[in-house]
């Protein structure tokens, strides 16, 4: 414990000495200030401490939607954009040098000569290096928590779940960073490979999303075809039972439409099968890779566990109050239905699956890094 605490304190002092740590913290402060500038009154929502005002009867003070919107702005935009992208890149730049510097000739010698096993040294150093993210996100969450509480009397403790989630998300990337850092002992190489790896995950996810969207859209079209076919078969059956001659224009047209729809359906089904052949390997790859986006998305999932309304529904005005006074999504067009299906499908993946498979990936990478660290001569 003494050794771990010493390494933790050392990591804090190292971060404290880095200007970038304070720059990121200052920018985080500005983001929290912007978040705090959003307010709600009796007529709607205001931004920049009242400089702009949007009148909306649904987004008034103490309304369910205003609370949901305020939370979602944090979980979707601030967390998803600032913390999960920009701050993460800055954190990587700031922390990439930790392991290569630690392994430099003359630096590592003293540490290895102490009565601590190399495995402990490696993992203690790794965990201590995550302090950058823990501190940044903790301070950030505290600001957001206070904004929510003071602005909307919404003292939402689940906001602090962002600390472990963001740390987990960062640790997936940082494990790769450490592996390359230990292997190459080069800060630049470690940073570049990590960014490439992250881009790889992003590309895989983006490709999967596009393929899945196309597939879902085609499935919906096939479902539409099926409905049309069923409807036309009923109509055709009616014509037959009414003994309308087969060569009558009405029956012939209907027959042609039915055949054309069946043909369209079959063509679409073939296409779906083809897409599925590509989709499966991408899914397998996704299953192995760490779920960066989905881990961040868990906070949004947790914050609006009791509703299916998301921030886009609110911003699109696709929310209505039903007879019982509950807020519900309005029935949307095809795009909205695709979104709903994709969202439902995503939510079938449990929290434990998302975190568990990602941690399994991280564990493999870290064991590889640790093995190199332990076996190497310095």
């Amino acid at each position, binding site marked *: 414990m*003494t*050794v771990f*605490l*010493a*390494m933790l*304190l*050392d990591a804090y*002092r*190292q971060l*404290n*000495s880095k200007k970038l740590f304070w720059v990121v913290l200052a920018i985080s402060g500005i983001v929290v200030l912007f978040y705090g500038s959003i307010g709600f009154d009796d007529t709607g929502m205001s931004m920049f401490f009242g400089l702009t005002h949007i009148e909306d009867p649904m987004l008034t003070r103490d309304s369910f939607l205003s609370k949901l919107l305020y939370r979602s702005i944090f979980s979707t935009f601030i967390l998803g954009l600032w913390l999960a992208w920009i701050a993460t890149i800055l954190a990587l730049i700031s922390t990439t040098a930790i392991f290569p510097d630690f392994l*430099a*000739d*003359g*630096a*590592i*010698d*003293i*540490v*290895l*000569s*102490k*009565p*601590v*096993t190399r495995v402990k040294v490696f993992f203690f150093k790794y965990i201590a290096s995550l302090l950058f993210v823990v501190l940044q996100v903790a301070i950030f969450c505290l600001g957001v928590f206070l904004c929510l509480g003071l602005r909307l009397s919404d003292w939402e403790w689940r906001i602090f779940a962002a600390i472990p989630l963001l740390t987990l998300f960062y640790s997936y990337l940082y494990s790769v960073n450490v592996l390359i850092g230990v292997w190459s002992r080069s800060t630049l190489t470690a940073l570049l490979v990590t960014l490439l790896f992250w881009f790889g995950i992003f590309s895989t996810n983006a490709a999967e999303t596009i393929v899945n969207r196309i597939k879902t859209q085609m499935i919906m079209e096939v479902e539409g075809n099926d409905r049309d076919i069923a409807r036309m078969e009923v109509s055709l059956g009616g014509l037959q039972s009414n003994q309308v001659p087969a060569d009558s224009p009405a029956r012939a047209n209907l027959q042609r439409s039915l055949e054309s729809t069946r043909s369209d359906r079959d063509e679409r089904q073939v296409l779906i099968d083809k897409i599925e052949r590509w989709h499966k390997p991408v899914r397998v790859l996704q299953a192995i890779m760490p779920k960066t986006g989905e881990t961040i998305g868990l906070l949004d999932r947790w914050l609006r566990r009791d509703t299916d309304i998301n921030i886009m529904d609110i911003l699109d005005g696709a929310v209505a109050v039903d007879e019982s006074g509950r807020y519900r999504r309005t029935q949307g067009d095809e795009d909205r239905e695709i979104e709903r299906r994709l969202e439902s499908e995503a939510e079938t993946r449990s929290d434990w699956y998302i975190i568990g498979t990602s941690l399994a990936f991280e564990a493999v990478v870290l064991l590889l890094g640790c093995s190199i660290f332990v*076996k190497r*001569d*310095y």
Partner: protein
Amino acid sequence: MRPGGDLKEHRPKADKALTPSRPASRTHHLSESNGQYAIDLHEVKKVYRGKVHALRGIEMQVHPREIFGLLGPNGAGKSTLVKIMMTVVRPTKARGTVLGRPMGHKPTLARVGYLPEHHRLPGYLTGRQTLEFYAALAKVPRAVRRRRSEELLDTVGLSEWTTKKISSFSKGMLQRLGLAQALMNDPDLIVLDEPTDGVDPVGRRDIRDVLLKLRDEGKTVFLNSHLLSELEMVCDRVAILVQGTVATQGTLDELTAESQRYEIVIQGAPPTWISEYPSLRSKAEDGRSRLILMGAEPEPIQPLLDRLRGEGRTILSVKPVRETLEDLFMRAITDPETGATLQPGAIAGGKGGRK
């Protein structure tokens, strides 16, 4: 206080500090160490990437409570050997013990202090933070860390730099801090790799004094240095490493026994009776004669001096002479067959090198 200042109450005896002398009488035997060496190495081999034979079977023993000097030309394998003892480098093959426990036994390292060559201490820490950090890694209790860091910063002359970031320290100051770091866990064995590298003469003397004091306190000091004169002043025993093997080891008296002699300088030509003494040689130079009698004992020269006085000869000087460490070193790295200096560096493929 400037970094090169006095060591105050930690300074050992002034006469030792000013004229550190080789402690010739400190020859240790196994009986002194209860049959246990501080360091006992056998067949230590290191082959890098299957090609470069850095160490080719080291046999080396260091007694407790002595200052042991390891010397050798560049690339002889000195630092590799030190790193193997400190578990920084993994040996290809090795047997032996450090402080009575098998080499590589991690818990034993809590009793060992180490200062590596070209060490790099974290620049973002202050002097005290540095010492406390490394002491914590050595599992020194918190209360002891604070107390010892203050004591040792004072010992190495950095008491006024306690709260300064070490990124502002000079090379010599960093070396002093590194030494203090190696002593934080009050070790029984202190392994120092080029401890006076980059240190000014005053600082070197201070470090020598610290080492002598440590030995007087019963610690064992293992010193790796290029500076033969430094080693000669403090070491009880030395080993010379050449091309990955121990060329010779022992006390300076033992190693230079063959070369020890007395030289008597007299006025005038050499006496005619010199041939009566088989171990006596003479050399005439500028109206004087130098009579050389091989051996370390003073008794054999007494009758010579009586005879010279009996003849009314003027005796100008009588002095014991022996090889310096430098002479010894040069002898060790010279090929006895060809007389050529052995090439520095490790052996590729394990062929050639010293026979």
